[in-house]
């Protein structure tokens, strides 16, 4: 480093100062969700607010668990698993020919995939509502799975094309010379080698379906079909927000995503930047 001693000290101070600010900004609201969930309803509205709960209680969690919320979480889980499985399989099937085969219309297909991935849900919710209504799939979990596929299939395909391209061609050419069919190459060569990539893509699909709000709000409304995001808005109708229960439910719903995130954080960050652009 070509830097004087005082410059190095100044740099260090700036780094730690900036880091404290960044951590406070990023974690403050998350801390506030957790702290609120542990307060009694009286303390929640105390002025000035307490930054550490005086009498921590789990009562908000019990209320949430005794309500219909666990059922909504289960619905979210069923929908997200369905979306993940279908989009990983369909995505891998579609990504393979685009990454490896020569066929007419290939560039058109990859353009269609990226375009579909970029099409925002808020432009599609009314058209999809009409289609699902005509199919009799409004207020069904299957209908919601179909709606989420419109985002996750293009996204998974696009990401997997990138992963498949990083696999050395010699591997599948060797298999081809041994007489393997395309299906065998995909199942026995490409997918095992790209397994970490497939896992990351599956996690993304799961997270998207788990977190999604707009489609859930519009397409499902009865207790048997509502996901937790649609269910939480049920606690906010009108002017009264039941903050303790809302925040406790939020913590319960965030936990699975945070676990995924902590376990796979490095791969997620790599995948995210590889999927949108290659550095």
């Amino acid at each position, binding site marked *: 480093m070509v830097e004087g001693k005082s410059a190095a000290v100044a740099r260090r101070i700036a780094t730690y100062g900036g880091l404290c600010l960044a951590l406070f900004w990023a974690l403050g609201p998350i801390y506030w969700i957790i702290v609120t969930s542990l307060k009694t309803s009286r303390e929640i509205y105390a002025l000035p607010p307490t930054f550490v709960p005086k009498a921590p209680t789990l009562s908000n969690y019990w209320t949430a668990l005794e309500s219909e919320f666990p059922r909504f979480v289960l619905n979210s889980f069923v929908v997200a698993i369905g979306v993940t499985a279908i989009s990983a399989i369909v995505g891998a099937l579609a990504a393979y020919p685009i990454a490896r085969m020569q066929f007419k219309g290939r560039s058109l297909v990859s353009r269609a995939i990226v375009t579909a991935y970029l099409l925002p849900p808020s432009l599609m919710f009314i058209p999809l*509502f009409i289609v699902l209504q005509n199919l009799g799939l409004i207020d069904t979990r299957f209908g919601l799975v179909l709606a989420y596929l419109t985002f996750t299939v293009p996204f998974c395909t696009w990401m997997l094309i990138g992963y498949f391209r990083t696999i050395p061609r010699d591997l599948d050419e060797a298999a081809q010379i041994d007489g393997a069919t395309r299906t065998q190459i995909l199942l026995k060569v490409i997918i095992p080698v790209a397994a970490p990539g497939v896992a990351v893509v599956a996690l993304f699909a799961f997270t998207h379906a788990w977190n999604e709000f707009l489609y859930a709000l519009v397409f499902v409304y009865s207790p048997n079909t509502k996901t937790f995001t649609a269910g939480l*808005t049920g606690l906010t109708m009108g002017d009264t*927000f039941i903050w303790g229960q809302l925040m406790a439910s939020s913590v319960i719903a965030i936990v699975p995503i945070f676990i995924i995130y902590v376990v796979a954080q*490095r791969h997620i960050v790599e995948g995210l930047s590889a999927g*949108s652009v290659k550095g």
Partner: protein
Amino acid sequence: MATGSHLPAAANATSASGDPKQRDWIAAYIFLAPAAAIFAALIAFPFADGVATAFTNKAVAKPGEFVGLANFISLVSDPHFAVAAWNSLVLTVCVVSIKLVLGLASAVLLSQPMPLRGLMRSLVFLPWAVPGLIAGLSWKWIFDEQAGVLSAILMALGLVDQQVYWLSDPQLAMVSIGLAMVWHGLPFFTMMFLAALTAIPSELNEAAAIDGASVFRRFWSVTLPQMREVISVTVMLSAIWTFNSFHMVFILTGGGPAMRTHILPTLAYEYGVTQSKLGLGSAVLVSVMPVFLVLIVLLTRRMLQSQAR
């Protein structure tokens, strides 16, 4: 194939079944079939149908009749539409610019040597993993006008002397919505820029340092040009997503007070779902499609190029 007809039929048939290239593209189409079915039935058809619906008076429970441009004409003279379009534009431009600047700053920050750097990065990225709805709820509670913590902190610091109306003053509400959007969207910028930053060969920076270039000068003329591609893709992606942050507006203000904080997607929801006028709601969405199509076409080209490289 133009020359195909000159060959004897038998030879043509054997080449069709025997040529591996030929078999290959049949296999390719079979592999693509499920994705193509989803694309046709759930993306292309609804999209076209949605555009067509904008020219009808369809309601939730009844089929629509063709009404020509009536929906669009009523939008042109609709003050709520003008307000929502303006809000969408200002919000997108401001929020994306702030995320760009803060994203660059925090990426540079997190690339500095520090203890536990991996953990620090995960913690700063954490808002990205919070579901959008819950991010909206937590800010709604932070902005609460009776017991909100933000007003309390500002009062404790002596900056204000009473609760601030973060969400019930329409202009301030747009600022508050923007703040929450920056919180939720910033980690994506930081992650993208950090990845790009680490990919820049350090020799470039060192050479410039030896030439006597200052830190800022090096960042401006060495680092930034190297990141141009990543920056433009990130900004375009984020512009699309920010414009469409339905959940933040829906949770924080619901478009109120007096429909003054709507953005176009929430206005489309208000008309199409709440008031059950699907035709009018579709017209709101169709009216912004041209902007998106341009953005999406540009971005698609970029992303295809960078993946081909």
